Structures are given as structure tokens and as C-alpha cells.
């Protein structure tokens, strides 16, 4: 690369100025509406000092970058993770064992955790399910889907509408919701999957928005912005978990002669979510060892080589897209059943971004990574309320930093591969 050499002082000065130009107008000045007039006020002194400090830090960093880099190299190193350990950690067999341990913990969880803990764990499991589904599309097949929340919405509304208008139960609707989402994935995927990756990203983004706008505006059918409320909770072979059973049903505690406990309902919902996640894990684990799963990964690595080998890229992409969408459908119908109330605003682009952040942070294609990332990224905002405000900011920054420093994710999985010794 041809690089004209600037004096380091000039570069440093320019960088510091850039920091000021970027940070001061947006962070240092605040628009406030006073009466009908718009006024500008300076932000708090702390913010201003922080901006100034950043600019100064940038100045010195650019000025002494070369020297700092050299000092850094000669500085005593922290012991790195030995290659053997990191190798073992990324082996598929190790990861499968860790997943087994996690499943055992998840099974024991509701019987030891408090009501709140089980409830949060249910939320985590929804995101695990969504993450695993999107992982098929983004991680395995390498298709950047930014409208994944659209399929989630389709699943949720499928159950809500069928239950609202036809009185169908959760277990009947679950496969229907999955099929509906898959159908939407198929119909949308058909035109757009012939396109290159970046087009696909924007089109799916637009699709997610279209679904939300339609749900908001078709007021007669979907209740518009108010959504659908009083969605039935799932039952266990016709046994309800409510205190008093609806017409023609029996309650769980009466049937087994127990006293009524509201935590039973929470545990039951948790177990359903766990069941869905286990189902997803099982199916995906089978799929990635089938020819179709191998084809997804091959396609991600090199589309032209795939074509040369006689694989039809459109069919392969479409299958990944459809199967990924169906898991979002399952997650959606469960979400509707758990919340009892859904509105179009539950399905904004932010949700897609969170799910994508989970897949990206976990390591694209790695199931264990996705599970751990879902746990961490869902728990953090729940545990620290102060964190919640900055949640999206941190997620965004995380996506940028991960791509720069560790694009393979925190816990990638090794592929079966052979290497030529040179």
C-alpha cells in the first residue's frame, strides 16, 4: 500500500480534532424544548471533561503509538491460554459434553431456583431458541438475515390469532406456527436468496418492518397497536395450570390432589421452553451432519466452488432460511403463550439486532457459543438495571469490537477438516 508519511504530530492533532468533532456536537450539546422554543444547552461538566480527556488521550496515543506498541511487545505477557486447552475447548466432542452438562443443570434448575429465577431462565431459553434458529441462517449458511424477528412475529401471531378466533390450544398451534413461519421464510426467501449477501441483509430488514407495519395497520384482524391480549396458556394433556379450570377442563393440582401453587405454572412454562430448545438442539445436530448441513457450510465458505460441484445454491439457501424461520415460529408461539399479550412493538428491529448479537458473540456456527452468549446477554440487562439503559449501546459496540478482534466469536467450534502439511 502506498502511504504518504505524515509527521506524527500532524496525525495526532488531526485525530484529536476528529474526536472533538465527533463527540462534542452530539454529546456535549443538548437540545431541549422550552415552551414551544427549541434551545441548546451544554451537557454536564463531567461529560465535557470526558470528551476533552478522550481527545487528549487520542492525541498522545497517536503521537506515541509506535513507541507504545514497542513497549507493549517487550512488556511481560500474561500467560496465554495454552494451545492444547483452546484446541480441546473448540473440539465438537468437548462442546457436546459441555452442552450435556448444561442440559442437566437446566433440568434441575426449576426445582431449586426461586420463581423469579425460573421466569428469567424461561426468557433466556426463548433467546437460546431464537439464537439457535438464527445460527442456522447466519452461522451455518452464512446468510445475513436482519428480519428474523419477522418470523418470530409470524409465529406469535399465528398462535394468538388461532387461539383468539378458533379457540385452538397451544399444542395444536405450535406446529402450525412453525409451519407458518417456515412458509413465510420460503415465500420471502424465494425471490431474495438469489441475491448477494448484502442485498439479502437489507431486504430481510425491510421484510421484518413490513410485517410489523402490516400487524399494526390491519386493526380488524390483529387488534392494531393494542395487539392481542388474554392468550390462553398451554395445558398439560388437557390439564390447566390455573386456579380454577375453564369449561370442560380439569386443573393440574386437582387431578394430582395437590394444593394449588402458582409456581407450578411458571415451572411448566419453563419446561416447555426447555423442551423446545432440546428439540431444536437435537434437530440441528442431526441436520449439520446430513448432506444438507454440510452443504450449508460449504456454501458459506465458497459459493462458486459449490456450484462447480453441482450443488444448487438457491435450494440450499432456501432450506436454511426456511428451517431457521420455523424455529423462530416455535419461539414466537411460545412467547405469545407465556406473555398472554402481544403487540407489534414486541417485534422491532432491536429484537433482530439482539438475536444477531447473540449469534455473533457466541461464535457463528457454534451451538455452545450461542447458548452461552444468549445466557450472558439476556441475564446482564435483567440483573443490573443501570445496565439496561446502555444495553443496546453496548450490544452495538460489542458487535463492532467482536468483528475487529475476534470475528470467529468467543467460543467457535472446529470443523471436521484436513490440512495439507507444508
Amino acid at each position: 500500500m502506498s502511504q504518504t508519511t505524515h509527521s506524527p504530530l500532524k496525525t495526532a492533532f488531526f485525530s484529536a480534532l476528529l474526536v472533538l468533532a465527533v463527540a462534542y456536537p452530539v454529546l456535549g450539546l443538548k437540545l431541549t424544548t422550552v415552551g414551544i422554543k427549541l434551545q441548546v444547552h451544554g451537557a454536564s461538566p463531567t461529560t465535557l471533561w470526558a470528551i476533552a480527556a478522550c481527545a487528549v488521550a487520542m492525541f498522545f496515543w497517536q503521537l506515541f503509538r509506535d513507541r507504545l506498541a514497542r513497549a507493549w511487545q517487550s512488556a511481560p505477557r500474561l500467560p496465554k491460554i495454552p494451545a492444547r486447552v483452546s484446541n480441546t475447548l473448540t473440539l465438537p466432542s468437548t462442546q457436546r459434553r459441555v452442552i450435556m452438562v448444561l442440559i442437566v443443570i437446566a433440568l434441575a434448575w426449576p426445582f431449586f431456583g426461586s420463581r423469579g429465577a425460573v421466569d428469567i431462565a424461561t426468557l433466556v431459553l426463548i433467546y437460546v431458541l431464537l439464537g439457535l434458529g438464527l445460527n442456522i441462517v447466519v452461522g451455518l449458511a452464512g446468510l445475513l438475515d436482519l428480519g428474523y424477528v419477522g418470523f418470530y412475529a409470524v409465529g406469535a401471531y399465528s398462535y394468538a390469532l388461532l387461539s383468539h378466533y378458533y379457540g385452538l390450544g397451544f399444542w395444536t398451534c405450535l406446529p402450525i406456527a412453525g409451519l407458518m413461519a417456515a412458509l413465510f421464510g420460503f415465500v420471502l426467501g424465494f425471490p431474495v436468496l438469489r441475491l448477494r449477501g448484502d442485498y439479502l441483509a437489507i431486504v430481510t430488514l425491510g421484510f421484518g418492518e413490513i410485517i410489523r407495519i402490516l400487524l399494526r395497520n390491519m386493526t380488524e384482524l390483529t387488534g392494531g397497536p393494542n395487539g392481542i391480549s388474554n392468550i390462553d396458556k398451554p395445558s398439560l394433556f388437557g390439564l390447566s395450570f390455573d386456579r380454577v379450570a375453564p369449561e370442560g377442563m380439569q386443573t393440574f393440582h386437582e387431578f394430582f390432589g395437590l394444593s394449588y401453587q402458582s409456581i407450578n405454572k411458571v415451572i411448566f412454562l419453563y419446561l416447555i421452553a426447555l423442551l423446545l430448545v432440546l428439540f431444536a438442539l437435537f434437530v440441528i445436530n442431526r441436520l449439520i451432519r446430513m448432506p444438507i448441513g454440510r452443504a450449508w457450510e460449504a456454501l458459506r465458505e465458497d459459493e462458486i466452488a459449490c456450484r462447480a460441484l453441482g450443488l444448487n445454491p438457491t435450494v440450499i439457501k432456501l432450506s436454511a432460511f426456511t428451517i431457521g424461520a420455523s424455529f423462530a415460529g416455535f419461539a414466537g408461539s411460545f412467547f405469545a403463550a407465556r406473555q398472554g399479550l402481544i403487540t407489534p412493538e414486541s417485534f422491532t428491529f432491536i429484537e433482530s439486532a439482539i438475536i444477531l448479537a447473540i449469534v455473533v458473540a457466541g461464535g457463528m456456527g457454534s451451538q455452545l457459543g450461542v447458548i452461552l452468549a444468549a445466557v450472558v446477554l439476556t441475564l446482564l440487562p435483567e440483573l443490573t438495571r443501570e445496565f439496561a439503559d446502555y444495553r443496546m449501546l453496548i450490544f452495538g459496540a460489542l458487535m463492532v469490537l467482536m468483528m475487529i478482534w475476534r470475528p470467529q466469536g468467543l467460543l467457535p467450534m472446529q470443523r471436521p477438516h484436513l490440512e495439507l502439511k507444508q
Partner: protein
Amino acid sequence: MPELNHYLQLLIDGLSVGSTYALIAIGYTMVYGIIGMINFAHGEVYMIGSYIAFIAIAGLAMLGIDSVALLTIAAFVASMIVTSAYGYSIERVAYRPLRGGNRLIPLISAIGMSIVLQNMVLLAQDSRGKSIPDPLPGKFDLVAGGAVSISYMQVFIFVITFVAMIGLTLFIARSRLGRACRATAEDLKMANLLGINTNNIIALTFVIGAALAAVAAVLISMRYGFINPNLGFLAGIKAFTAAVLGGIGSIPGAMLGGLVLGVAEAFGADVFGDQYKDVVAFTLLVLLLLFRPTGILGRPEVEKV
């Protein structure tokens, strides 16, 4: 002829919105033309541009300056400078370190960047929208009785967009840097070998795109007088649609695509109702990608190994 008047009015409104889409679309198309990637954070740059415009206008008004011309110029200058800084920084942080790897990687980092920018403004400026009164009230009646009219603001939008487009076209076609831009778009490696600092050229395209987005942001935020931190998302998607419509990578294509999209949206909103205005743009995008992915003026793309 009430029918005809109605359609004429729609056409004028559509063209005025469309010309600002075209300005934003140029940012997408120029970056795509050179590095073959979509700048996902471009919509947020537009949003920041409109915030800076409001800050400049409100700030100067507080100092007692009430000349509309002065306020407008200040809004343009401040907004273009700040968004240029943003364009440059985005390229340095989210694109340059990732060049040449897997295509998915810069895309994801740019999405992360756009989330960061949106939430940064949301936290710093709070989520409530801000509004200012129309700086140029009044309109010309084109048909007696006001059945078809064009507001002063719309005329202003047409004039400024036209000037910006001419300026850009001349810059690309005549200037030394413009020639370097075209050379880099044609063949990055070769341009590099011939002594063009391609890193600077790539940064330059981000800066030009951001500055043009700022022009659009000032125009639109003055016309509608209302901004909020979420407006970058929709503007970004629409401008991208415009860029694809005209053929991504082609600058005249982006201009044409913006105008076509603006008109299509105005007529679509008239037929299907205002709440489906945004759906029109998305549907157009999907149909277009289905039937003519190269756009109106685009060249078919040959994928190289």
C-alpha cells in the same frame, strides 16, 4: 381537471422528497462502487446530520440571530462538517480494519456501528422528538385557486439538490481527485500501483457521502420541522432502495432512483393510504431485486473467483 391537478401535486411532492432520497442514496452508491460494501451506518449519519442542523439553528437563534438565510447556511456548514467527521470515523473504525476478509464481517460491524450511533444520540439527546417552526412558510400557486402549489421550501429543496448534484458530477468528472475516485472504483489494486492513495480515496467517498446525507438532512428536517433519534433507520432503507433502483454503484442511477422512489411513494400512499407509504418502498425493493437486480442504470455484475 381536478384529477389531473391532484396527480400533478402528487408528482411535485414526490419529486421533492425523492430528490433528498437521491442525495442520501449517493452515499450508498459511491461506497458500494469502490469497496463493494453497503455502508449500513449511513442512515444514522443522516440522522446525526439533522440533529446538528437543529442544534445550529436553535443555538444561533438563542444568540439572537433571526435571519433565515444565515441560519440555513450555518445549519448546512455545521451539519456537513460534523457528518464528514462521522463518515471518516466510521470508515476508520468499522471498515478499514476489516477490509479484505469475509464479506459478512464488515457488514455486521457496520450494523453494530449503526446501533451504537442511534443509541448514542438517544441517550445524549433523549428519545423525545424535537421540532422547529417552518423557516420558509408560503407557497407559489401553479394553478389558479391553489389546486396545485409548490411551497418555497420545496423550491429550495429542488435548487439545493440540483446544485449539489451538479457539483458532485463536475467533481467526479473533472477534478483530479474525482478521476482518482473513478480509477479506484474501476480497479483498486491497479489504482494503487499507479500511485493513488486508495485508502484516502475510500475515506473520501465516505466523507462525500456523509456530507451529501447532511445536505439532505438539513433540507428534510427544515421542511418537516421534526426530528427524532429513530429516523435514520427508515431514511437509510429508503435511500438504499433508491440506490438499488437506479443500479447500485452508478451515481446518475442513484439520482434517478431517488426521484423514481419519491414519486412511487407519493402515488402509492395516495392509492393504498398513508400508513402503507413505507410498505410501498420495501415492496418496490423486493420486486426490483426479483426482476431487475441490476437496477435501471446498473451494469450486470460478474462474480469473480
